[in-house]
C-alpha cells in the first residue's frame, strides 16, 4: 500500500509541477489542483497508513495507541481541502477576468 500511495503522490506532483510552469492559465490552474491533491494525500500519509482502525477512542477504556488511526492528519486534510477548494475557485475567477480584459489566456496577459 505504501508503494501505491507514494507512486500516486509522485505522479500527481510531477504532472502538477509540469503543468504549473506551462504558459496557459488553464494549465496552471489544473497544475495547482493536481498539486493540492498530492499534498492532501501526503498530509494523510504523515499520520501513518493504517487500515480498519478507528480514529476515536472510547472514554474510560484502557487505550493502546497502536490500535487507533491518528485523527489529527484527517482533520488537517479536511481543512486543507476546504481552503484549497476556495482558493482554486477564486483563482478561476481571476483567470476568467484576465481572459476578458486581455483577450488572451497567456499567463502574462499577452502572446509572446
Amino acid at each position, binding site marked *: 500500500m505504501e508503494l501505491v500511495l507514494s507512486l500516486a503522490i509522485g505522479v500527481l506532483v510531477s504532472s502538477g509541477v509540469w503543468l504549473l510552469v506551462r504558459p496557459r492559465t488553464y494549465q496552471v490552474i489544473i497544475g*495547482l489542483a493536481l*498539486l493540492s491533491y498530492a499534498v492532501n494525500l501526503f498530509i494523510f500519509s504523515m499520520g501513518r497508513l493504517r487500515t480498519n482502525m478507528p480514529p476515536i477512542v472510547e472514554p474510560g477504556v484502557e487505550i493502546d495507541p497502536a490500535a487507533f488511526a491518528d485523527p489529527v492528519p484527517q482533520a488537517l486534510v479536511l481543512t486543507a481541502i476546504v*481552503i484549497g477548494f476556495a482558493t482554486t475557485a477564486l483563482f478561476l475567477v481571476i483567470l476568467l477576468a484576465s481572459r476578458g480584459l486581455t483577450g488572451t489566456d497567456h499567463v502574462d496577459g499577452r502572446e509572446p
Partner: protein
Amino acid sequence: MQMGPEHLVIAPIVIPLVAGALLLFFDDRERRLKASISALSAAALLAVSIALLRISHYGDGRVAVYLLGNWPPPIAINLVVDRLSAIMLVLTAVLAIPALLFSIARWHGAGPHFHTLFLFLLMGLNGAFLTGDLFNLFVFFEVMLAASYGLMLHGSGPFRVRAGLHYIAINLAASLLFLIGVALIYGVTGTLNMADLAIRIPQVGEDSRMMLEAGAGILGVAFLVKAGLWPLSFWLPTTYTAAAAPVAAIFAIMSKVGVYILLRLSLLFFGASAGASAGFGSEVLLYGGMATLAFGAIGVLASQSLGRLAGFSVLVSSGTLLASIGLVQGDITAGALFYLVSSTLTISAFFMLIELVERGQDAAANVLAVTMEAYGEGEEEEEEEEEVGIAIPATLAVLGVSFAVCGILLAGLPPFSGFIAKFAILTAMLNPGGLGEQGVITPASWWLVALLIFSGLSALIAMSRAGIRAFWAPVDGSVPRVLLIEIVPVAALLLLTLALTVQAGPVMRFMEATAGSLYAPQPYIDGVMEAPRAVPRQKGGEE
C-alpha cells in the same frame, strides 16, 4: 457571560471578523456608514493591542495564553501573546487606521466590499501573530491571503488583474509548500503546537532528524516567499506597485508577517538549546538576506517610476531584516525589530504619498479623479476648501516636505527613526562581544555593513532623483488636488516615526526585552504548557 481581561487575547481576531461580516449586510452605496464601522473597529483594535502590549511588557516576560475550547495544552488550539506578537498587533492597528482614512477620500468606492476585505485581512494578520500552533498559522495565513487577493484586485483594470494572477499563483504554490512542511514536521514529532515542538525537537532521534530539517526547510521557503527573499521575490515589486494606494499601505506589513514567523520559529525551534539542529537555516537567512538587500538596492536605483521605487524599498527592508536575523545575536535582533517598526511605517506612508504626488504628474492615468471632479464644480469647491481640502499653494509644499522626510527615512539619515534603527543594527554588528569589548567581526558582518550603507546611499540617490523629477522638473505641471483626509494619514505616520526618534530610549529598551525573551524562550514554553484551564462556572452559582 462575563468579559474578563483574559478574553482580550482573542479580541484582535473577533473584532474584525464580526465587523467585517456585519458590513456584508449593508449595501455598498452606504459608504459613510461602512467606513465609520470599519474605522471604529480599527480604533478598537488599536486600543486592544495597546492593552495587550502593556500586559505582555509589564508581566516580566510572562505570556498570556488563551485556550480555545478549554482543552489542556498542548492539545487543541491556543492563542499566545508575548512581547513580539503584541508589538506586531500594535503595528498592524497603527497601519490600518491611516490606510482606512486614506481610502475614505476616494478608493473605497472603486470596487465592492473594500471594507469587509480590509477587515478580514486584519483578522488574518492578527491571527497569524497570535496563534500558538503551526496549522492555525496556515489557516490564518490563508484568511490573510484570500482577503489580500481581493484587495489586490480592488479597482480592477488589466494591469492589476495581470499582476494579481501572478501573485495568486505564486502564493497558492507557496501555501502547498507550507502544508508539506507542516505535514513533515507533524510526521516526525507528532505535534503542531509551537511550544510543544520546541520541547520535542531536541529529542528527535538521529534517523528522523533529516526529515525534520527537510520539513522545516520547506516550511521556511513558504515564509521566505512572503517575506520576499531573493530569488523568490520577483513578484513583489510588481504586485505592490499595481495595488491601490491604501491597499499597498497595509500590504507593507504583509511581507513582515513572513519575517515575524521566521524570527519566532527559528529561535524557538532551532535556538541555542535545540541540540544537533541548533542554528539550522541561519546561514540561508544571512546570505539570502544580503542577496535580497543587494537586489533591492540595485532595483531602487534602476526604478523609473515612484511605485517601483517603493516596491524595491520593501525588498531592501526585508533583506535588512532577514540578514540581521540570520546573524543570530540578541542586540542585532533588537535593532532589527526597531528597524521593522520604523521601515514598515515609512513604506506604508510612502505608498500613500506616491499616489498623491503622481496625481499631479499624470492626469490621464487618474480617470477616477477626473470623473469625480468635473471642471464646473471647481467654483463651488473653493468655498468649502477650509473643511475638506487644504489650500492649494500649500499642497506642493506639504507633499514636498513629506517626500523629503520619506527619503531621509528610507536612506536612514538623522534625525528620523530610520537612522536610529540602522545605527542600532550597525553598532551591534561592529561590537559582537558587547559595547567596548573585544570581539571578532566576521567577514559576513563586514559585507552586511557595506551593503546596509550602500542600500542607504542608493535610496538617497533614487529619492533625490525622483523628487527633482516630481517637484522641480515639471514646468507647467498641474497642482494635485489633495484632500485633508488624504494627507493627514501620511503626515500622521511620518510624525509617528519622529515620535519613535524622540522616544527612542524606551522603545529600544522594549525591543531589547523582546529580543531577550526570544533568545531565552523557556518562559514562553512554560507559559503555554502550564497554562491554567478556565474552571467552568457552576450554573446558578453566585459570584
